[in-house]
């Protein structure tokens, strides 16, 4: 096994990968942080803090040191965060009465996988089910533009594994899984981390590491359940939802790995500490993957409510548009994005969401239509192909975009594109068609001028538009599924 200290982030190995660039964590201005909080959370000058001896504000989850941060082994982890006290799994039905669930509710922790659903509500629903629940940590970060879960698992796996044990204890689960994409050094590292914990005897419940396929949809809850049950990692029809009937038919708590890492810190430091960062409605810190206009990519832990302009360095590296929320997310005009803090409430007013914390600044001299067409071609190929409207509609939508991104497109493609976008929405077993259409529609608004230019055989990229477009700015994997084996 490789010495943990010599390992670097797996993201650093990928082209345009993360963890390069300046010091990320802790640099963020804590905008919207303290104001309007519960009085208990506000640090009183001169009053000793009983909870924690003045921890630095950020980073909370990631080890300090920014790009030079060292992956934490178990000993290092226990020195930084203190040991975890695990009790025996109580019979479930403890529900909201469980101390930790109440603390998580008080902290206002929301899911960091993209949906921002209140974590405590999900835990209570699972804990009060009829059968003993199952807990799954979801680290299958299928979104190509997101690297934050891989980064967290690489640098601080034990925080996630602590959170997994705590969540299992809180809902009364004995069966615990950690689900990540197959292969690579991250898988090895997690196997090593689990072995460290087994040797130290610090986990009451064994954790099974399950490998998912490298598919965009592999982390969708029902796809995850299907994969753990031995099937293909494809979404299933709802109901039942996994919190009602998931792995092996048991109520299943599926939490994103970052959410679990926050749980591990809330259990140690409490809700008031958690609320010292973030906004009153959306407390805490979050991991983001920032693709800046200068071509650098970085995973940074920031307070919720930090200005988007600061995260993307829009002052020094100007952009023409900003993508928020990843490939199921929304394009915003750079001037609009620059005025927004990174939080769901303000972003929703602009028609966008935080999602899993992906931000991408499209530099000038890039064709937004071409970028969007590349991504939508990828999304169409990543459809599980199970639902007729998605199977038939997404490739046509991708075709229409490719035409619009080319020189002198037939204006009827725009008409087709709008009609097909309406036709696929809400008609899949999962949100893949809906998310794809959200992304496409925002592109049609933000890059409207580009459509006009292309009809005049011009393009904002120097010279004329070309169908090929060259190397895209937004990362898109080349491999797409062809066989059922690709979904295992």
């Amino acid at each position, binding site marked *: 096994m490789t010495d943990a200290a010599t390992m670097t982030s797996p993201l650093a190995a990928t082209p345009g990968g993360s963890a390069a660039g300046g010091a990320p964590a802790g640099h963020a201005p804590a905008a919207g942080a303290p104001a309007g909080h519960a009085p208990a959370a506000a640090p009183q000058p001169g009053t000793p803090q009983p909870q924690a001896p003045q921890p630095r504000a950020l980073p909370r989850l990631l080890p300090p040191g920014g790009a030079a941060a060292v992956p934490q082994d178990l000993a290092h982890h226990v020195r930084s965060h203190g040991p975890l006290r695990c009790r025996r799994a109580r019979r479930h039905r403890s529900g909201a009465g469980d101390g930790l669930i109440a603390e998580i509710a008080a902290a206002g922790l929301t899911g960091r996988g993209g949906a921002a659903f209140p974590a405590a509500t999900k835990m209570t629903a699972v804990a009060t089910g009829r059968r003993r629940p199952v807990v799954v940590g979801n680290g299958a970060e299928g979104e190509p533009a997101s690297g934050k879960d891989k980064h967290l698992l690489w640098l601080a796996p034990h925080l996630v594994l602590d959170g997994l044990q705590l969540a299992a204890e809180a809902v009364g689960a004995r069966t615990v899984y950690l689900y990540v994409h197959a292969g690579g050094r991250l898988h090895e590292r997690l196997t090593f981390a689990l072995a460290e914990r087994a040797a130290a005897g610090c986990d009451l419940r064994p954790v099974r590491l399950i490998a998912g396929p490298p598919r965009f949809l592999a982390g969708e809850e029902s796809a995850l359940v299907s994969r753990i049950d031995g099937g293909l990692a494809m979404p*299933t*029809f709802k109901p039942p939802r996994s919190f009602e009937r998931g792995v092996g038919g048991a109520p299943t708590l599926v939490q994103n790995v970052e959410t679990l890492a926050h749980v591990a810190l809330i259990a140690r430091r409490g809700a008031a500490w958690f609320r010292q960062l973030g906004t009153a409605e959306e407390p805490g810190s979050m991991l983001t993957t920032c693709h800046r206009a200068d071509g650098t990519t970085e995973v940074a832990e920031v307070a919720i409510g930090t200005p988007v302009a600061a995260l993307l360095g829009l002052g020094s590296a100007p952009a023409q548009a900003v993508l928020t929320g990843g490939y199921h997310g929304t394009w915003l005009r750079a001037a609009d994005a620059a005025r927004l803090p990174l939080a769901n409430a303000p972003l929703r007013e602009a028609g966008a969401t935080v999602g899993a914390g992906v931000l991408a600044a499209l530099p000038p001299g890039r064709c937004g239509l071409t970028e969007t067409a590349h991504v939508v071609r990828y999304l169409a190929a990543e459809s599980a192909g*199970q*639902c*007729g*409207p*998605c199977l*038939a*509609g997404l490739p046509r939508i991708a075709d229409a975009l490719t035409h619009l991104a080319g020189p002198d497109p037939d204006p009827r493609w725009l008409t087709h594109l709008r009609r097909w976008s309406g*036709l696929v929405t809400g*008609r*899949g*077993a999962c949100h893949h068609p809906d998310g794809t259409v959200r992304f496409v529609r925002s592109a049609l608004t933000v890059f409207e001028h580009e459509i006009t230019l292309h009809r005049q055989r011009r393009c904002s990229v120097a010279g004329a538009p070309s169908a090929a477009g060259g190397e895209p700015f937004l990362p898109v994997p080349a491999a797409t599924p062809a066989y059922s084996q690709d979904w295992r």
Partner: protein
Amino acid sequence: MSVRMRVNPIACTGHGLCAELLPERISMDEWGYPIVSPRPITPVLEALARRAVTDCPALALLLEKER
């Protein structure tokens, strides 16, 4: 309490029987898949709706009761 029709899009293979049995609530898109109206199934339509559910060759239709 109202009853609505839903299609399981994974099970549906686009036979098109439902749109013929219940054109009041189901139409076909340009690819041959059913578009199910979110409007409730009125008592007058209930018998036809049940027939569409039982006759679907893919058993892809369901009636859902909502409060």
